[in-house]
């Protein structure tokens, strides 16, 4: 039993990030901290997804001297999760940007970033 594959490390880090993000999002009342919580969740999920594509001892799915055509199917890391994550990062970026824009607008209306000030509509 050797050292666990690197994907386990990535997976564990990803899961911890998600949990830290949830904790931050649910316990902080400051809108900026909530947004940071969301970013952590997002990043954590991305790491989990990348980890699912990993193959122990595998290499990048680029066919060159390191990876012959025959070995591509067995030795290359699955590129699709990485491709998904790239797209998801872009989407996460735009969503974070929009949330930050809302944070600015909300701050302008009431000069505070506390969620306590923004509970007008209810019931």
């Amino acid at each position, binding site marked *: 039993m050797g050292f666990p594959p690197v994907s386990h490390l990535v997976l564990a880090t990803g899961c911890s990030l998600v949990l830290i993000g949830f904790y931050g999002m649910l316990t902080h009342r400051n*809108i900026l901290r909530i947004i940071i919580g969301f970013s952590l969740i997002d990043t954590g*999920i991305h790491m989990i997804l990348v980890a*699912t594509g990993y193959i122990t001892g595998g290499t990048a799915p680029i066919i060159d001297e390191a990876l012959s055509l025959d070995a591509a199917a067995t030795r290359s890391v699955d590129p699709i999760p990485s491709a998904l994550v790239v*797209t998801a990062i872009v989407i996460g970026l735009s969503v974070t940007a929009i949330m930050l824009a*809302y944070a600015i607008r909300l701050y302008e209306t009431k000069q505070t970033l506390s969620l306590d000030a923004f*509970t007008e509509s*209810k*019931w």
Partner: protein
Amino acid sequence: MVASLLHPLTIFILGLGGGFVLPLVYRLGKTWLKATFFLALSGMALVSALGLVRLLLGGDAIDILTAGSLPPVSISLRFGLWEGFFTASVNCVALLGALRLWPRLSGRYAAMLLYLIFVMGINGMVMTRDLFNLFVFLEIVSIGTYGLLSLEETPAALAAAFKYIMATVLASTFFLLATGLLYYATGTLNIDGLLAQREAIGGPIGAMALLLLLGALLVELKPFPANGWGLDVYETATDGVAALVSVGVSAGVFFALFKLEPLFAGQRNLIAWSCGLTFVAANLIGLRQRLVQRLLGYSSIGQMALMVLALVLLRRQEADGVESGGADVAFALVIGGLFLNHLLAKAGLFWLAGAIGAREWTSWPSLAGRPLLLLAFAILLVAIAGLPPFPGFWGKWELVNALAGSGDYGWIVLILFGSLCEAVYLFRWFGACLQAPRPAAVPAFFSGELPVLVAALLLVIAGLAAAGLAGISSFWLFLPLAAGAALAVIDPILPGQVKCALMLALVLAGGLFLSQGLDGMRGLFAALLLSGGLVIASAGFYRTDARPFHHALLAVLLLALPALLRAETGLDFFVTFEIITLASYFLIARSPAAAPHLLPFLLFSLAAAFFLLTGFAAHRAASGTDALTALGSAGADGALTFVLLASGFLIKAGALGVHVWLPGAYAEAEDDVSALLSAVISKVPIIGLLTGAYLAIRSQNAFGLAHGMGWIGLLTVIGGAAMALREDDVKRMLAYSSMSQLGYIVIAIALMSHIGWVTALYLVANHLMVKGILFLAVAGVTLRAGSRQFADLGGLMRSMPFTFVAVLIAVIAMSGLPPLMGFGGKWLLVQGMADQEWYALAVLSLVATGLGFLYMIRLVHGLFLKPQPPNRAELSSAGSLREAPIALLLPQYALAAAILLLSFYPSLVMEPIAAAIDPAFSAGLVWRGMSLQEIYGYWNPRPLMIVIVAAVMSAIALLAMLYWFRRKDARFLRSTGGKESDALSRFFAFYEPMLGVLVRPMASRFWNNVARGVEALGCLRRVYDGDGQTYALYVLYYFLALYFLGSAIPI
């Protein structure tokens, strides 16, 4: 070239391309910007609509492959029939919504860009066949929504948008995780690939991925209680954007769920419970809501939950192998009907709410000055409430039928209860609008009125199309609506009396056409109700004002009667029944005084209708056919159907206990409308009872059930008479009297014998003529004397002699005194009861007859015989107290002539009745095997007549004696204050406290408490505390609950 332009891929080119071009043309000028935006948007609508038409004409579904390779390597899109239907509908509504939103979009290219991308994203969600691609489109739609939400800049709107972002970002994060895990478990992202190997998706990762995916989709559809964030947005966003979220985003997400649903086959029960809870909770909480947009939000959430509920229940049936004929059509009607109905009606209502601008429905202004908008408002509400002829109705009909087919009556009850709550809060809003004193400001045409009107128009068209699909047996069922529409079109330009004449001509022609070929009982009813209806409606000539929409509604109502009799299937019958209810509702609503009574009327009518709906569904489930004739051959298991149908009809007939809607609705309608409602329309449930009565005969529990119905009838007779006696308002007294008289008819039907049914028809004819006369007479009295209170009336014999004579004839005919036709009816009834050995019923009905005498005496005495109250003397001296107008007298005398004719030549009516009933009946039920002629010869009415009259007279004498001895009683004198001027008035006043004991308003109190209790359940809304973090927590809890419940229930 043209073909490639119309390829579905053009939708994306237009969306993305339009988005890129907008910032460029922004430099060129506003006109260019506007042109580009609408060109792109209408291009998308056109491409999808033409694509749908091509598929409907039999074209093949289009599979769009990308990147030059086949799925699963590439992403593929599909444009099939369902995709075409969803995209075309959403794109058309998006186009209308852009019109509505134009004042906000105008000049802001960024907002237009977001709008285009948003619409394109929904199209993508519908068409894509790749799970990750679905995620991308979902995010595109979400980001478009976040951007559009910022169009409203109030702090509340911004805060709501932020809560919305928090919740939906959580959902999409889980969606992404689920996508990745599903890929890990299956090696594919292609939806068809996933569906193909769904049995193989298992293990902890696969199962968790499925549950996360399901949770993400459900959260996007706003399940209770994780939906406060959606409600806040509905409440605070610009109406145009709220409409987009309500119908657009939901459409995309629903379709995603629709595509992926087979993956969740193991969780169908879980989904159903979540959606059922959401549907009921949303509609319960809606009862407490005053803000219009938030109210519409509750309704939206409920409707989406209903759609998902319907989807999983139908799919579950399919999986269980419950096969019924035309299951595909039924499925299409349920999903397509509910979807299109909600899409158009909810968007229209949001737009209307925004165009009118009042935030709370309680302060909603009057739309009386904008008849078209008012009409559209009514159409949208009726559609959302799931009533015919709109697509949602056909969907609900098929859904309830399917559920009855698999015995899921619990789900039926849940769905109908939620629908009832929804109808209450929607129609309460409509009632507030009708009552509002302040007229609405005129909205702009293009951005205010046009989208709403087009949505209403599209609903009508879609409803008719769905009717064809649902298997309406003939389109003449819509003749009443067509006639009403024709009269409504010319309504604003013609004077009232011309419209009245046109309406009568139209009803006569249409009625003759519709009643062609009706024979037997149906033919008799058609002749009776149509002629009676025409005679009473002709009294409308006495009003010289324009009465907007009155005549159109009257035409619908009167023509629906023969249409009802023509109905061949349960569906035909139910549709026409609902049309009659709605036409009556709107007719009553025309009278401002009726406003407080509208809601009870509608509520009880709908409850009745829901009983019928379930009853017909149970019938179809038991007999396998929807034909009404099959009611006659129902087997021993017809008891359930009979109880359901009878309950519905008894509610509609105003049986004691569920009568609370009746007096207000009948009494506060306009005077000639009251006459029509009480005399003619009240016979509709009677027709139904007679139609359904076969069931009781066939079912094994027949006798018990029928006997029970007889008792209900008797209690109604007594209760109605007691309340009539106590009433100080003439019209309300007549309304209670109607209730009481209908009770006799119910008893007669309950006899389930030949003689009973002959009696029922005879009493129907009698009551029609009598109540027509009495209500029209009171219309004249109210017109001349200016009051409906007994305290203000009296001594009218001299000034209104013709009215007096007509009333006298009617009262004698009603009371059952010889020689007029009421006597024959009572006689037959007592004979029938004796025949069935229902002696207790027979004796008690004689007592009730005595009570009836008392209120009738009070009527004649109070109006005509007692001296005129002193405070009214100036009326007669001013000369305004004179005979009623000839237009009111003529119909009364026509009816009186009919009473006299039928009284002296009873065979004129008895023979057709007997002939009508004979073929419908099995031979064993003919009364002692004799023909009616023999029965007449056999009967000797005189001795029994003497006994009855003597019994009643002695009862009255007893009452009079008691009064004589105690009239000086100090307590009594104090209680009346000695105001009553004459002996008879004092006599009635003496007995009033005693009657008070008898008619304590128990039923009203009971129903008020029920209403209060149901409304109190709305305290569920306390979960929405307005805190975004709490809402995010609810979303997490929802995922957790789904995960634990989903893994506990084996796949």
